[in-house]
């Protein structure tokens, strides 16, 4: 009966236009619709599958501004049992190390955690570092980039996919797992789930509640900071090859020049 904590993050919808704010180059949260990050939906789904197979409890943990409650509600409507929301103006501009510290402190508030499940990287920051840093801070084994997770008693087995092949990992619980795109297909919340989510407990904590001080977190003391951001150059028009009997050769020459063949 594993006690699972799932990390979720609210991110700007990839369908909308995303940008950074002009001033401090942090995310401009007003410019885009905010959604539960899709990779986190997969993390929640995996936690629910484990819970459904062997009972247990699923707690959703999110660090983010007040409006992140919408993302938390979605995870709850999918079937998670309760949530912790760390929301504090001091967290504005926090980097991955600070975020992991806050997450570790919040996980410390949950009794008897067996498993922490995260997405391998968010669609906005794309650092992909939080799960590993968090595992270090908690002193848990890290089984990252999972495409398959099996919990058997106090052991956890993970298949990690790399470009060279599949690595089989095994560790004892408690552990931190991060999941990739291929792990599962997340469920859509049902109306019953949506109605039930309203009644599930969400504990809201500040940085001080976690025993951390405001100057340890946030942009001013961050280890990394975004200095500049520029949009990708617009796509160039393609190159036309007129076929004058030698079209095939020209195409082949082009591919060779681009080192594609």
């Amino acid at each position, binding site marked *: 009966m594993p006690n699972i904590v799932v990390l979720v993050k609210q991110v700007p919808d990839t369908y909308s236009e995303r940008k950074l704010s002009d001033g401090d180059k942090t995310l401009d949260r007003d410019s885009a619709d905010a959604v539960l990050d899709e990779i986190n939906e997969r993390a929640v789904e995996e936690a629910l599958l484990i819970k459904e197979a062997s009972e247990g409890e699923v707690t959703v943990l999110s660090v983010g501004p007040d409006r992140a409650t919408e993302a938390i509600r979605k995870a709850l*409507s999918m079937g998670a049992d309760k949530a912790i929301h760390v929301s504090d103006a001091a967290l504005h501009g926090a980097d991955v190390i600070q975020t992991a510290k806050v997450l570790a402190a919040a996980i410390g508030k949950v009794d008897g955690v067996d498993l922490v499940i995260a997405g391998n990287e968010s669609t906005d920051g794309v650092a992909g570092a939080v799960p590993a840093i968090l595992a270090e801070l908690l002193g848990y084994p890290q089984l990252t980039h999972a495409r398959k997770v099996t919990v058997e008693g106090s052991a956890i087995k993970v298949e990690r996919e790399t470009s060279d092949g599949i690595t089989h990992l095994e560790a004892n619980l408690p552990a931190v797992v991060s999941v990739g795109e291929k792990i599962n297909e997340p469920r859509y919340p049902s*109306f019953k789930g949506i109605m039930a989510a309203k009644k599930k407990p969400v504990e809201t904590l500040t940085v001080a509640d976690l025993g951390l001080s405001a100057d340890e977190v946030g942009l001013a003391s961050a280890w990394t900071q975004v200095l500049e951001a520029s949009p990708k150059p617009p796509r160039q028009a393609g190159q036309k090859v007129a076929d004058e009997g030698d079209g095939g050769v020209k195409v082949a020459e082009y591919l060779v020049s681009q080192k594609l063949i």
Partner: protein
Amino acid sequence: MIDLSIGEEYEALRKTVEEFAREEVAPVIGGFYEREEFPYDLIAKMGRMGLFGLPISEEYGGMGGDYFALCLALEELARVDSSVAITLEAGVSLGAMPVYRFGSASQKETWLPALCRGDRLAAFGLTEPGGGSDAGATKTTARLEGDAWVINGSKSFITNSGTDITSMVTVTAVTGQAEGGRKEISAIIVPSGTPGFGVEKKYSKVGWNASDTHGLSFSDCRVPEGNLLGERGRGYAQFLSILDEGRVAIAALSVGLAQGCVDESLRYAHEREAFGHNIGHYQAIQFKIAEMETRTHTARLSYYAAAAKMLRGEPFKKEAAIAKLVCSEAAMDNARDATQIFGGYGFMNEYPVGRFYRDAKILEIGEGTSEVQKMLIARHLGL
């Protein structure tokens, strides 16, 4: 003042179905439509989301929601595709609801859980070759022989009646003569596969091509006496109340199609260039889209108003008729305008607006034609 916001849970449901329609339905439905193939996998996914049990209580495997929740789901599906929307509409409001409203406890336990899961679909056989809106003209008969009903006759245009997962059809039939010489009409459940119950070849339709529609024939088809749904002789009254609800559902579906036309036209107005500008730069296009948006908005208000009365348990017959009339005409008008905005591409099946155009016309016909709605409204005014 009155509050027209729809509330948090409804909004969360609407968003969920919007996301489902965009990510699961939109990428594949064009192919099903072209092949005139029923999208079983999509229907199964909708079942897992609980859409088929939205207005039904948890006791019978439903979601414990209400009819407005169903309307919102229909609207969001129809924004992308009407075939899956009508499959849901017919499955719930015509298939499951008669059993839920009028069935015995044992009938509900037998049929509803699988219908709510979307594992099975049910249909409602009312229309006949010789009569649609004039439902009193029913020719199909059912006579009691011992402890069985023996049914003879035929039905037309019955949605969901011939899929691999159809479990039963509720059929209206003449079961005798009522006082004053009127026909006594009753509703009877006929399970799929009953001997004498024939499902005709699938129709070739102008629209709704990924939905399942057949004619049905009954020839000495025997079902147990206990398959009578509700009271004997109340069949007519029962389906009239089912049709009132169904009209609000079709109104919601129509608003979805009207909104889909706005969505597609807006996108295209930004993309497509003509004479040196995006076509959205021109007032001819701006005015068309403004009119489309206006129709959609007012149509939505009309079905919200009907649904609000229905949920409060007040009489809503006139409001349902008005909503059905206004929304279906908004859908048809928007589909025509959207097709015009898309020009030649609007006439191609590979663009959604072409599908919208083909799917819109039936909305002014099914669940009571526009003329029938006007008749109902006039009757309500004492004419």
